[in-house]
């Protein structure tokens, strides 16, 4: 809970594929790399396990941003799961775009070896959302 007067810290919900992105986040931990506290990872067996309903639920129950992250297309542990994710999330983005909510959702491809890329992506997203929220608060 943010206190008044202080800059609010955004909360980001991330759905991370247990074979790639979640492994990358574990590796980031063992490398002592830091990513913002507001990022909450949810481990899913495959990025295609993420029903867009989860994302919509997260957005309307208070998350400032949501990301879905999985293996690079073609590298899915279940062979073609992330191709379906790509279609589903691209369509969901288009739908959120129709309501001008597009900046709340992101899709990342992070493999198990790309700990630095994971940190980079997540931190960029966090900072961008934080900046936007602060601008909105001032206005």
């Amino acid at each position: 809970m943010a206190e008044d007067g202080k800059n609010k810290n955004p909360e980001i919900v991330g759905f991370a594929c247990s074979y790639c992105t979640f492994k990358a986040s574990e590796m980031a931990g063992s490398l002592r790399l830091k990513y913002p506290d507001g990022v909450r990872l949810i481990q899913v067996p495959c990025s295609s396990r993420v029903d867009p309903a989860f994302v919509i639920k997260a957005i309307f129950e208070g998350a400032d941003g949501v990301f879905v992250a999985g293996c690079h297309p073609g590298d899915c542990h279940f062979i073609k799961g992330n191709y379906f994710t790509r279609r589903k999330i691209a369509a969901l983005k288009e739908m959120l775009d129709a309501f001008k909510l597009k900046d709340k959702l992101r899709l990342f491809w992070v493999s198990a070896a790309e700990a630095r890329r994971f940190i980079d992506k997540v931190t960029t997203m966090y900072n961008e959302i934080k900046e936007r929220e602060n601008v909105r608060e001032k206005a």
Partner: protein
Amino acid sequence: MSGKKLKNGAIEEALNRFLKENETSRLVIGFEDNESGVCLRAFKGHVEHYSLFCPVFSINNTLHIRRLFSKGTKIILMLRPCEIRAYVELIKLTQIEREDIIAVSIDCPGTASSKDKIDAIPLEAKELVEYFTKNDKMRWACKTCRERRGIVGDAGIRIGQDGSAWAVSYNNKGDEFLSLIDGESEEINTGMLLVESKKMDKFQSEMDRFQEDFSKCIMCKNCRDMCPVCYCIDCVFNGDEYLPKGDALLNRIMRSGTVQLPQGKELFHFIRMYHVSQTCVGCGACEEACPQGIPLTKYFKGISERLQSMFSYMSGRSFEESIPYLTFIEDELKDAED
């Protein structure tokens, strides 16, 4: 395009011939014109007072045959194009067994809402078109219809500019339907009364407008129940996970603070909007079922057209096209990643 010309009463004759062949296992589902107005009937044994058109839309009639899996009873469906499109989508979703059903779509000049007061509406195609141009009774969903021509399903009944009716077949089952009708198949020379619909502008809205429109929502979920393609038996909104009630609601409020009640309007409509996005046929049954008069069609149709155009898909256009979320192409959507 070739088809059989339908004389006056020819269609009723053909349907009666179909039913007479085997009285115990034949059914025709179509519209009947009786004293109280036009309504949908499942005819067994004999067809009487058959009407091609039903100018008042109350529900999408495919809803009745959802989860129809029995084989052995031959059924002819004589419905509007939007209803046949919903039927095609339900076949793709394995919610209907296609084997013994012949789906015939009939050119639709538009429909009026069952909520409006309507007096003396004609039942002929040309007069109906005139009727709807003269007044503003046509539903918004019909004004923006994507396919009002009977070119979907197994066979179609098309209306020519001179008011003549033609039966056209699109596949083997359609041929079976045409064989019931007297006369020879001939080339159709006249132009058609209904032409291809205009494309709608890309849908764009914003949250403020959405909240304003849906502020009246009472969460009765009628729109879900009356939607022909919202087919899940175990809907996510039935439990306490998405829309908590009672104890679960109390827990939620204690955990996360003040909420407006009924809670979860955006959640419910957004998730439903996404779930039906590729299969929505834009029939407007949700709006018709809404007791609060929320312009649901505007949102559901707008979003579904926008999302379907991403994959150059149109719901119910053909039996062969796969629903976009159930298939993929390896080399596409390069800019999906952020």
